[in-house]
Every structure is written in structure tokens, then in C-alpha cells.
């Protein structure tokens, strides 16, 4: 796949252009090709090494193809390997030259040394040139029957390679049937395991085309086959065990006894040193017991210890992969992990991706008994040097408060955050206090006293500013200087870059007006006129709407802008349970790490605007596109966060990223010409407090 033109572009300037060197190599190789002098292999090795190292750094050395092939006639196995590697790399782009190699590869496939037979066969299958397929069939057939197991393992994977080059040849030659026979009869474990991998891939791909294939695929997860594998579990290598366990996970046992038998048989796998085997076993356990509720719970209890061990051992990357799975399970059954909350405490030096997951789990497992400790711990992190983590931990405190445990103590903590006098802490805390007030209006008295003490000059982040403004509007009665703060904010209207803040300012000043008309009147006038002149379409529209509403009837306007509100009981969960179940089905794969089902990141249509392409040129365009989308995403994420502060950023990004069409008008908003109905309605919905209601009435009019 490495076209020469592109590979030249990848060179960094410090690397040699390679032209002169390559032609030198060519002549030297040619001199050595026919030579039989002693020590010639040594000089060949040096030359081959040079060729390979050029190839690695991206210099095109395909021009020495002929010479390399000529030199490959040697008993030296290391030389042969280098030559195979070279041929494998360039055959695809030079199919004509590849034909030259067929001869010597085929001869090597019949060598008396099994090592060389295997290597040659592997290289032959790795040429990936469609019109050479005919030369492959013979050696493959012989390889599968070879007396040496090493050659057979290579040949089995070779069949899979052949399938990817030319599916029809592979099927026509009935290789899959041979593999099936080998799988059930070969004495060597690795051969059997490779057969299984190959057959799974081939039949899954074929299943959509042919009845037979889908029947064969079903046959793989039939009772006899599954039992055959289960009984030989111990002879497989750790990697092969992963593959077998994956297969077992798909099997549907006929009754509960069978489920228990399988679980008893596999239980010792949970003690395996290879984390991948443990995770694969856990998957089998979880999926087998889905229908039995109480056993399913027991499984959670059983797998807790191995999972926690895996998390605490190995590199941060490995523990991240495991932690993502633990995260999934904790989210599904938080109560089971409630007593293990201390395992989710963050260590000072852990990378932030690990900390982030741990914070989410701490949030999830909080219950009546452990909330105090968890919140105390989270407060420690709020003072952390790692600012994103500090933010996350404050958010986590807020989420726990919204989960309703021991709100009293938590509100105190949150208010302490406001007094810490760190910009980002204040900002996050403000957003949280706002959400809390929406859920527990009864706390307004305590909160307002503290919020009132915050100078709006110290709050710069749009989200926090919007939250503060919302509180100013909502509680203008209780906060003495609310109208004056709003007024000073409106004076700086032109300096306010975030449309979201300006929208909130409009609504807040309206609310304030209905409560304290004399003090606010001037500010309202200024706000409306500034809003009408605003270049942002939504701000403009909302100002106009308020203006007309006031003109029409002030009391109607009040009932629209400031209706009696009910406390929010539950904040919406962003991820549907259906999606969560799909992720659970795909346990032990990337889906869990990305927290979205595989179709969202493997299918092209779901991947969204950023398309990856082979051309380097397109790549940079793609990058630009992504950058353009980013601000729009941010606006949107902010909006939605106001609505669903319990949501996770990731999940919001998901749909937004996909719907490129929808984000387009948003980031074009600086030019007021375009404003489709769809953007309006989206925005209206995303500001639920007042605008949502306004809009519905607006439509009625």
C-alpha cells in the first residue's frame, strides 16, 4: 500500500534522498549476485540490511527488485528472511516484478527444511497480487498437508490471506472445508487455533452471500465444536485461548446446567496471567448468565477481584483498557462495586485518562454509606494541579449531589469551592450550583448568599457566566444588587463574545424586570436595543421576540418568560439503554473504550465529516474541516450542557460530530444571512428555561 510517490513525501529533510545510494546498492548487489566467493553472504547481509533500512524510513528501493531476487539464491536463512520481507513490501506495487519471485518462492516451498518451507509459504501468501493467485493454490494445498506443524500453521493463515486476495479462488478450491477438517483433527494446538480464526473470518464475511457459509458459521458455535474447544482449552497458547473464549461467548447453551458446567470449566481462566484471557473469560461469564439475574450478580462479585488486580498491574495503557471495561460494569451495576470505592481513588501520578475514568466510577458508586468519604476525596482533587481533572472532580461532586445522597453536606462543599478563589473552580462550581438549584430550589437561600458575593468580573468562562446570569435573573428578588450587576453586564454587551451568554442576559434581564421593574427598566431597554442590533441571528431574534411580546401584553410576557417552575426531578441521561446494551454485547473490544457501539466508528456513514483517505493531501483538508467543526461543537456542547449537565461530553460529541449538515449553519452564524428553521428550533430547545416555552407560543401566534 505504500505508493512510491507518497513515500517520498514522507521523508524528513534530514534523511538522504536515497537516489545515489540506491543506484550504488544496485551495482553492488549485481556484483554479488553471481558470486560464490567465501564470505559473500556477509557482504550480502550488509547490503540487504541497508536496503531494508531504506525501505523502513520510506525511501523507495523498489528499483533493486531484480537484483534482490537474484541474490536470494542462498542457504542463509537470515538473508532469505530479509529478501522475503523486501519482496512482500514491494510486490503489491510492482506486480510484474513479483512474478519473478514466484519461481524461487515456489522452490523454497519444497525445501527440505520446514523452517524455509514455512517462511516461503508465508511470503508467497503475503505478496497480495491478485493475478498471481494461481501460483498460490498448489503450495497452499501442500502446506496444509505438510508433516510439519509449523508449516501447517503458516498455511492455515495463508488460506485466510488468499481469501482476502481472491475470495472466489479460496472458496472454489474448497480450502475452508480442508481447514474445518484440520481444525477438528490436527494434533497441534496452534494449527487448530489458526483454523478457527481463519474460518471465523471467512465464514462471517461469506455469510451474507451464501446460505452454506452462514450455516457453517452457525456450525462453529454448535455444541460439539464448542465442547471440543472447551475440553482442549489448556493446550492452547494464551493468545489462542482468547480466540476460543471469544467463540464460546457466542454459544447459547441449551439449559442452565450446561451454563454452570461451562462456567466451572472456565473459572480457572480468571487466574491467568494474561489480562486478555481474563477479560475474554469475563465476557463469556457475563453473556452466559444474562438471562439468570441472581447468577449474573454473582458473576459480578466473582470477577471483581481479577478485574481490580488487572487494573492495578501492568502499564497505564493496559490498565486503561481494563479500566474501561470495569467502568462499563460499574455503570451497569454500581451497587455491586459500592464497597470497593477506595480502589477508584486516584493516585497523584496517574495519567489523566485513568483519573477521568476513576472519577466517573466514583460518582457512579456513591450511595448513602460512602458518599461522605467519596466527596471528601473528590474535594482533594479539586485542588489538584491538573486543571481538567480538578474540573472533572468538581463536576463529579455535583453529579453526586444530583443523585440525592446527603445533599446537605455537599452543598456546603460546593459553596466552599466558590470561596477557593480559583477561576476554574469558581466557574465549575457556579454551573453546579445552578443545576442544584433547578433540582432543589429549597437550597436557594444558602446558595444565593454565597453566589451574590462573587464578582461577575471574576467569572470569564461562558458556561459559568451564563449560569451566574441565570441565577441573577431567577433570584433577582433575593439578590439585592441583581439589577445593577445585570446592568453593568449589559453595558459591556459588545465585549461579550459568547452568544450563549448574551441570550441568557436577555432572558435574565426580562425576568428581573418583572420582579423589580423600576430598577431594571433602563437596563432592559439597553439590552433589547443591543440585542436587536446584535449580529448573531438567535440573539437578534430573541430580543425582537421579547420586544414584541412586551408590546403585545406585559402580563402575557411575564407568564411566558417567568412562569412558575417545577423542580427538575431527574436530569436526562444522554445514552439510551439500547446503545448501552449494544456496547455490553461488544465487551472486550474497542467499543467499550470509545463508549459507543462499533457501527458508530467502523461504518463509514456513521463516522461523520472527518473522512480519512489514503492521499496525504486530502488528509490535511480533512484536518482543517475538523478544526472548523470544532467551534461549532463547542457552542453546541455548551448549550446542551446547560440542558443536561449530567451528560458526558463524549456522548454529546458523538451525534454532533455525525451530523455535519446540522452543525454547518451554526458555525456560519457570524454572517446573519442564513438562518434555517432547523437551527432556530434546535437552539430554542437547547435553552429550555425560558426560550423553549417562548418558542412554542411564538409558533402559535
Amino acid at each position, binding site marked *: 500500500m505504500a505508493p512510491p510517490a507518497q513515500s517520498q513525501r514522507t521523508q524528513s529533510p534530514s534523511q538522504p534522498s536515497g537516489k545515489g545510494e540506491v543506484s550504488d546498492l544496485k551495482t553492488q548487489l549485481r556484483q554479488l549476485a553471481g558470486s560464490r566467493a567465501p564470505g559473500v553472504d556477509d557482504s550480502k547481509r550488509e547490503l540487504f540490511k541497508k536496503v531494508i533500512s531504506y525501505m523502513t524510513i520510506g525511501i523507495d528501493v523498489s528499483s533493486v527488485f531484480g537484483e534482490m531476487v537474484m541474490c536470494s539464491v542462498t542457504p542463509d536463512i537470515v538473508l532469505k528472511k530479509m529478501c522475503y520481507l523486501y519482496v512482500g513490501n514491494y510486490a503489491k506495487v510492482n506486480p510484474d516484478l513479483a512474478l519473478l519471485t514466484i519461481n524461487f518462492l515456489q522452490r523454497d516451498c519444497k525445501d527440505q527444511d520446514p*523452517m524455509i518451507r514455512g517462511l516461503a509459504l508465508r511470503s508467497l501468501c503475503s505478496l497480495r497480487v491478485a493475478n498471481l493467485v494461481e501460483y498460490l493454490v498448489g503450495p497452499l494445498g501442500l502446506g496444509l498437508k505438510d508433516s510439519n506443524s509449523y508449516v501447517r*500453521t*503458516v498455511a492455515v493463515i495463508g488460506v485466510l490471506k488468499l481469501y482476502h486476495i481472491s475470495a472466489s479462488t479460496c472458496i472454489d478450491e474448497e480450502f475452508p472445508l480442508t481447514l474445518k477438517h484440520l481444525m477438528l483433527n490436527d494434533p497441534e494446538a496452534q494449527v487448530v487455533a489458526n483454523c478457527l480464526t481463519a474460518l471465523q473470518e471467512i465464514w462471517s464475511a461469506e455469510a451474507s452471500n451464501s446460505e452454506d457459509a452462514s450455516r457453517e458459521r452457525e456450525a462453529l458455535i454448535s455444541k460439539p465444536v464448542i465442547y471440543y474447544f472447551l475440553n482442549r482449552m489448556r493446550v492452547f497458547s494464551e493468545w489462542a485461548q482468547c480466540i476460543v473464549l471469544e467463540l464460546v461467548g457466542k454459544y447459547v447453551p441449551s439449559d442452565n446446567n450446561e451454563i454452570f458446567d461451562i462456567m466451572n470449566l472456565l*473459572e480457572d481462566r480468571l487466574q491467568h496471567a*494474561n489480562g486478555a484471557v481474563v477479560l475474554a473469560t469475563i465476557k463469556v461469564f457475563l453473556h452466559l448468565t444474562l438471562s439468570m439475574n441472581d447468577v449474573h450478580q454473582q458473576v459480578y462479585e466473582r470477577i471483581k477481584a481479577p478485574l*481490580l488486580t488487572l487494573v492495578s498491574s501492568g502499564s497505564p495503557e493496559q490498565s486503561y483498557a481494563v479500566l*474501561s471495561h470495569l467502568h462499563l460494569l460499574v455503570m451497569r451495576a454500581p451497587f455491586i462495586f459500592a464497597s470497593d470505592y477506595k480502589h477508584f481513588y486516584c*493516585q*497523584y501520578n496517574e495519567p489523566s485518562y485513568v483519573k477521568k475514568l476513576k472519577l466517573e466510577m466514583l460518582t457512579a458508586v456513591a450511595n448513602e454509606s460512602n458518599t461522605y468519604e467519596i466527596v471528601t476525596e473528590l474535594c482533594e482533587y479539586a485542588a489538584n494541579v491538573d486543571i481538567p481533572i480538578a474540573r472533572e472532580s468538581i463536576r463529579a461532586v455535583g453529579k453526586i449531589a444530583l443523585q440525592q445522597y446527603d445533599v446537605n453536606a455537599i452543598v456546603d462543599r460546593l459553596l466552599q469551592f466558590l470561596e477557593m478563589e480559583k477561576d476554574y473552580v469558581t466557574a465549575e462550581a457556579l454551573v453546579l450550583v445552578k443545576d442544584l438549584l433547578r433540582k432543589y430550589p429549597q437550597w436557594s437561600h444558602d446558595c444565593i448568599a454565597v453566589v451574590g458575593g462573587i464578582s461577575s468580573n471574576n467569572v470569564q468562562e461562558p458556561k459559568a457566566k451564563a449560569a451566574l446570569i441565570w441565577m441573577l435573573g431567577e433570584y433577582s428578588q433575593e439578590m439585592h444588587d441583581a439589577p445593577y450587576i445585570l446592568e453593568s453586564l449589559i453595558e459591556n454587551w459588545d465585549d461579550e463574545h459568547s452568544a450563549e451568554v448574551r441570550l441568557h442576559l436577555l432572558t435574565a434581564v426580562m425576568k428581573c424586570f418583572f420582579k423589580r421593574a423600576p430598577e431594571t427598566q433602563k437596563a432592559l431597554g439597553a439590552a433589547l436595543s443591543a440585542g436587536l442590533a446584535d449580529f448573531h441571528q438567535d440573539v437578534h431574534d430573541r430580543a425582537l421576540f421579547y420586544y414584541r411580546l412586551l408590546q403585545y401584553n406585559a402580563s402575557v410576557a411575564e407568564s411566558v418568560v417567568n412562569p412558575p417552575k417545577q423542580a427538575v426531578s431527574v436530569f436526562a441521561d444522554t445514552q439510551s439503554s439500547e446503545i448501552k446494551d449494544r456496547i455490553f454485547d461488544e465487551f472486550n473490544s*474497542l467499543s467499550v473504550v470509545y463508549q459507543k457501539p462499533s457501527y458508530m466508528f467502523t461504518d463509514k456513514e456513521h463516522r461523520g465529516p472527518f473522512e480519512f483517505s489514503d492521499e496525504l493531501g486530502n488528509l490535511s483538508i480533512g484536518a482543517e474541516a475538523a478544526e472548523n467543526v470544532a467551534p461549532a461543537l463547542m457552542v453546541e456542547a455548551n448549550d446542551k450542557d446547560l440542558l443536561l449537565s449530567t451528560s458526558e461530553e463524549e456522548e454529546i460529541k458523538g451525534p454532533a460530530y455525525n451530523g455535519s449538515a446540522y452543525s454547518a449553519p451554526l458555525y456560519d452564524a457570524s454572517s446573519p444571512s442564513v438562518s434555517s428553521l432547523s437551527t432556530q428550533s434546535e437552539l430554542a430547545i437547547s435553552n429550555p428555561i425560558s426560550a423553549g416555552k417562548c418558542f412554542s407560543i411564538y409558533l402559535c401566534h
Partner: protein
Amino acid sequence: MPVSASAIYFLNLRGDVLINRLYRDDVGGNMVDAFRMHIMQTKELGTCPVRQIGGCSFFYMRISNVYIVIVVSSNANVACAFKFVVEAVALFKSYFGGAFDEDAIRNNFVLIYELLDEIMDFGYPQNLSPEILKLYITQEGVRSPFSSKPSDKPVPNATLQVTGAVGWRREGLVYKKNEVFLDIVESVNLLMSSKGSVLRCDVTGKILMKCFLSGMPDLKLGLNDKIGLEKESQLKSRPTKSGKTIELDDVTFHQCVNLTRFNSEKTVSFVPPDGEFELMKYRITEGVNLPFRVLPTIKELGRTRMEVNVKVKSVFGAKMFALGVVIKIPVPKQTAKTSFQVTSGRAKYNASIDCLVWKIRKFPGQTEPTMSAEVELISTMAEKKSWTRPPIQMEFQVPMFTASGLRVRFLKVWEKNGYNTVEWVRYITKAGSYEVRC
């Protein structure tokens, strides 16, 4: 089907390719550029080891000054992929005899290509056991230059074992002196609050083994763990001997251990690989003996002065001693001058990590040295932002001590030739993440 890798790249810190190996055609050839452009050259580096770019996912790991990147286009098995990388690096190390870094890769790249060819085929891990691979990938690292004779012809029946069941041991080993070395290495993780209460504490331990045994020996290891002892007394219908027993939260074993037998009889029995390997790993959260107590008092005297007093108590036996004790006490960035008084060891201020570093080379048990320091700070404009104190961190090694209390009770060796073996057992406890908030 979860493939583990479609391609694997080794890059140096600048992003130059050291090794690239494409296993499958489903990813393009310019993946390195994508990685460089979207991960290495952005702030994303280090934020998450799994990243999606376009239709491909990148898993990457940094090992010394090398990035190892795995690219896949399907819904791959992440845990397996990372484990593969870790195992592969261990394999390379055992071939190079030591460090794995950019230079080692450059010097051995042909060998790495050879190995990459064997350990993974078409994206599926094959055989990564160094024991077996060394039988037929015989080209040694740079240590011995190429021999002039083609001596590296494979051992005639080497490939026979490549796929076999007891893949970790080859037959026909003979040693003059049969020896087994056992190392019990524990690392203690502690998180203590500023008030001295233990927030989190656990021990992760491993038993490392070095075997020089002839033939095909059968080994059995007995520990003082609770379940094992109970089971044993049950079987022998004899009451458990008094003495400390410990409860293991979780154990994992090397693939040579017969797991079925462990589950039924609770004994660790195995046919060991030749040479060095990790026999088992365990985790303990209950009844951990902390080797050290740290008692800090930090006073901020006005804006420009601080007083730091730290007392460290060693709570292990008086006859034992700890080695290489390092206590790092964080101080604010604007530290200007420090003066110390220590009753043992040496202390100094390290500006690059903003810490007072107190080192004690040999730290006997049941002692409590102290350090007191005066720290002068530069007064800065940013007074308002109060200093958030990172935790005090500690490093140490305590030989012949296990924080968990684990002991080896016996190690039995059976071999059909019935030779005598010499067994050596060592214990050591190290600091994992030993943090005390102040």
C-alpha cells in the same frame, strides 16, 4: 472477530519510523503520517492511549524513547493488543539482553523484523514465548557479529515444539547443579490523608523464579495463605498450625501453573520454564504492614517563609533495614532558599521537581529520624492563588520484609531422576505509589 493489529509501527520521539510492519491491507500505508499529524504534533499526545482517526484506531505506548503504535480498522480487542505489545517488548529485551530503546532497535532491526514475522501473522498473535522462539530465531543481537559459517541453521526438531502444548519448556535440559531462585517482590501502595488515616492501601506482589533444573521437573509451592492452609489441613485432617496466615485478594499465574489443580486443591504446581519467569502475581488489601509512617508538619509563616518538619518512623524489625529511602516533600515553585537539619541521611532542594529531597541510604528498623527545613519563598504578584500541596512521596526497598506477611513454606521439586536441588528464597518490599498528603 477481534484482530489485534493491522499494522505495527515503532517510532522515535521525533516521529521517524524505526520499524514498520504491515500485517493486513485494511489500513493505508500512510498511517504514520496520520499518527504524527493528529497525535504526536498535538496536545492529544498522552491524553489517551487509544485514539480514533478517521476509520482507524491507534493504540500507542511509550517505552523509553520509542513509541509503539498499533493500527487497526476494525473493532479490535484492545486489552489483547496492549498485552501483545508488552509481551513483544519483553521478548525483544530478552533477545537484546537489556534495554529496549531507539539505539537497540536501530542496531537490531533485522532481528526485530524477523521476530515480528513470527509473533504475529495477519494480525493474530502467534507464539511469543522467548524459550521457543530462541530455538529457531537464532540470529543474536549485536553482541556477536554474524558468523562466517551459516551456523544458524535451525535445530532439526525446533519447529516441532513451536506449536506444542508444553510450549514453555524444552526437553533434554541438563544442569550440573540444580538450583531454584525464588524472589518475592512486593510493592506497597499507600494513600494517607493529612490527618494520618489510611485512605487506600494495597500490596501487589509477584513471585519471580529463576530455574536451573534438569529434565522435566514438577514443582510444588506452598505459601502461608489462608485458603491454601485450610485446604491442606482439611486434606490431611490435621488442625492448622498457629501462625500468621494471610488472605490473598486475587492471584494470577504464569501459564505453566496447573490452574485446575489450584482450584481444586489450592496448591501451586507447575512444570517451570527454563531460566527466569514470573510465576504468580497477587494482590492484598487486608492486613498490610506498612513499613514506614510519615508524620509531616508544614507551617506557612507569612508569605515568604515555610517551616517543614518531617518525621519518618520505620515500623519493621530492628534487625532489618531499608535501602535507598527517598522522601520527596513538595514545596512551592517560588522557593528561593532552603536550610536543613537532619538526624540521618542528606537533604537538599531539587528545583526541577519542586521538592525537598531527603535521602537515607541505610535506614534501620524501629528508628525515627527527622528532618526540619526552613524554606524561604520569593514573594510574587500571584499571591492570591494559594499553593495546593501535592502529596509527599516516598521510595524505599526493604529486603527480607513482606508488607503482606507472605512467606514461602515449601518448594518441592520432583523429577524422575531424583536429583537434589538447592532452593534460594529472597523477599523484598518496595514502594509503589507511597503518598502522604500534607
